[in-house]
């Protein structure tokens, strides 16, 4: 169901996990060490025997050196030493790279030096030690936890929420929800998508806010009403209290989530028109290509070339929140000014099964960012050039295509006479690899993207915005990439 959502991020790849984990450990460990040092200063001032005694109690002569305080001290020392060593390594690296007698050119070619990489490892190690030191009291108390107590507190939290009628809030939310579909206009084939989006956008804040509120008031209410007095005078560790509350609220919210999602599923699936079902209830396999931008050689007038040179950042950033929201400016057919750019997706691997199919259905979504109002009632055209691996970028192919396309677009404008159509046919014939049938259909203005056979080195398809508006052409996503917003013109 969530596949119909347009999530704004590429999925996390498994290969990135170790690196991300490493940087997380470094960040968290740094904070932990600062916390530990601050607490050490505090404990020295307030507590006889310092931090270790505050955490673990004074050393007991009867119980000679239990492992926890020893490990704690070891971690702490290791963390501090690690940070110092990492700092020294960085410093050394800095000094070495600064000194003139060391040739710099090879080290630049090598990327980060051995010292820098080594200091990275040491830093991660030190941070992990600090993290362990901070978490050790939790781990140790984890050993002495009694799940019956925690479960008791969890049940209490659950009952509290139910009996205090907090859940009525959710019920009332649902009530509003039932009427929501009245206010959501949707195109026929986008029905399911809209429903899911509505459900998702609605449930997320409601659940987040309510769980935050419930959880935030649990223990404070206990303290305020002093019910906590009867609880903490039982053999309950503070950690167990927090854990129990946490568990209870997690269970509660899971239950709420289960109920709400079931209801929402009913809401979403209760009646879907066939168009929407064909559009949305279909398995898709997204392919993510590497995106870069390139200018079209020879496609510039002099003025455009000057502008292009002036503009260092070739892709147009329009201030959207993520950096991959980059746009290529569209061609304004009226003026023919402005730089002409192409967004190029490169797919290193395409599933082999596709080769065995007579036809491959490709879908794409694109986002259009309008800088001007444009012409009302006119479609936005964008062209896709699908190159196979036989395509030779060094040749003149691309320029030829561009020029042919420009001509074609001009010819295909509404109100074309038969003469112009014939002209278009001629133009398309120039394009190598286009099948005769496709050419004839295209030149008759009937071509649909998915009807074009991509067996040759290059296939071209032209598409128009279904809403039929005119705007600057935005970024185009590759086939099957479902994580773009639907065109809303």
């Amino acid at each position, binding site marked *: 169901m969530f596949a119909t959502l347009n999530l704004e991020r590429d999925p996390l790849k498994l290969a990135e996990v170790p690196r991300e984990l490493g940087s997380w450990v470094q960040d968290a460990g740094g904070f932990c060490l600062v916390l530990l040092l601050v607490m050490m200063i505090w404990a020295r001032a307030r507590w006889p025997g310092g931090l270790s005694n505050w955490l673990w109690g004074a050393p007991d002569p009867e119980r000679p050196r239990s492992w926890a305080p020893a490990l704690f001290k070891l971690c702490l020392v290791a963390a501090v030493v690690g940070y110092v060593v990492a700092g020294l390594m960085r410093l050394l690296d800095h000094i070495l790279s600064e000194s003139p007698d060391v040739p710099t050119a090879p080290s630049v070619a090598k990327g980060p030096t051995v010292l820098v990489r080594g200091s990275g490892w040491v830093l991660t190690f030190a941070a992990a030690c600090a993290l362990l030191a901070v978490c050790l009291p939790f781990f140790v108390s984890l050993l002495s936890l*009694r799940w*019956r*107590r925690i*479960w*008791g*507190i969890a*049940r*209490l939290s659950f*009952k*509290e929420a139910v*009996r*205090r009628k907090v859940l009525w809030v959710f019920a009332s939310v649902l009530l509003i929800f039932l009427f929501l579909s009245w206010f959501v206009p949707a195109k026929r084939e986008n029905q399911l998508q809209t429903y899911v989006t509505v459900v998702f956008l609605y449930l997320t804040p409601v659940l987040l806010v309510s769980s935050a509120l419930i959880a935030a008031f649990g223990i404070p209410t206990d303290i305020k*009403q*002093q*019910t*906590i*007095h*009867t*609880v*903490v*005078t*039982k*053999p*309950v*560790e503070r950690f167990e209290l927090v854990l129990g509350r946490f568990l209870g609220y997690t269970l509660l919210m899971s239950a709420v989530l289960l109920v709400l999602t079931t209801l929402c599923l009913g809401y979403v699936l209760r009646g879907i028109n066939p168009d929407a079902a064909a559009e949305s209830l279909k398995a898709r396999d997204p392919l993510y290509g590497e995106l870069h931008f390139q200018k079209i050689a020879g496609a510039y007038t002099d003025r455009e070339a000057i502008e292009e040179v002036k503009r260092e950042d070739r892709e147009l950033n329009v201030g959207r929140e993520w950096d991959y929201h980059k746009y290529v400016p569209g061609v304004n057919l009226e003026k023919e000014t402005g730089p002409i750019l192409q967004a190029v997706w490169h797919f290193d691997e395409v599933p082999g099964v596709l080769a065995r199919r007579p036809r491959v259905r490709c879908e794409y979504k694109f986002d259009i960012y309008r800088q001007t109002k444009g012409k009302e009632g006119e479609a936005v055209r964008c062209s896709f050039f699908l190159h196979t691996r036989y395509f030779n970028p060094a040749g003149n192919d691309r320029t030829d295509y561009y020029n042919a396309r420009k001509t074609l677009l001009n010819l295909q404008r509404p109100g074309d006479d038969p003469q112009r159509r014939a002209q278009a046919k001629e133009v398309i014939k120039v394009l190598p690899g286009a099948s005769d049938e496709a050419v004839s259909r295209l030149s008759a203005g009937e071509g649909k993207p998915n009807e074009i056979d991509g067996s040759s080195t290059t296939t071209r398809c032209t598409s128009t915005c279904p809403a039929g508006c005119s705007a600057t052409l935005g970024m185009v996503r590759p086939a099957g990439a479902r994580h773009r917003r639907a065109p809303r013109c």
Partner: protein
Amino acid sequence: MGGQVVIETRKLTKVYRDFWGRQKKVALNALNLEIYQGEVFGLLGPNGSGKTTTIKLLLGLLFPTDGDAFVFGKPAADVKKNERIGYLPEESYLYRFLNAEETLDFYGRLFDMPADQRNQRAQQLIETVGLKRDRKRVLKEYSKGMRQRIGLAQALINDPELVILDEPTSGLDPLGARWMKDLIIELRKNNKTVIMCSHRLEDVQDVCDRIAILNEGQLQALGKVSTLLEDINRLELHASGVQLNEELRFLRIVEESKAHPGRRYLPERDAVVPGDRAAAPAARDGDKAEASPHIKELPKK
């Protein structure tokens, strides 16, 4: 006495401070106490004298400003000691959305008791405190006295060695108060240690072995009830200032004792006043009849 020391405080002091750390109230000042195993110990004092503060310090609910408190030989902040303690708060701070059975079940879980034991103990206690008929009702429908009863049941769920009761008879009717006192006596018979506090003398004098009298956070008196009560009675009559005659000759002792201000404990010499409560002067003295021994009239020095 002679038993093991269950509770020991050394110069226990609590100063309530406001948000800025400025001193607001000295609730307890350098309290030294030793409470022994198997005794019923009473804390007596007028409102705001620091009884509840003392108890909270003993339970580790508050951190002392100064001094130490030890329970079962462990610092009061130690959570493990709570296994052996039962505590009835001043007002029964219980979850009002639970019913009696669920309440006891919840607190039983906190003591890590297995289900059958929890259940059995809960039923038994509900019967003991007389809430059998109301055991399925939620606590917010309970009256004050009923809440006090379920609070007591909650305090006894783990069969504690040390029971700490903060004003156990508050909110109870005379019969209920009597029942509570019997229960405390029963606990003592089972060799439990009981600490209770109250501002009502008659609560304390019936059941307690020893009492400590607090006023404004200061320990005023500490000792056996019988001995201290004589002291109290004398002081009370002193306050009412009746005419001296042969019958009330013990008043002279009061005047004497007035000459020794400060804390006088266990005056052994006053054989004059009958130790027996039935023969207490207030009962004999007609115009003092309403001046029942009430702690409010206790030493204002």
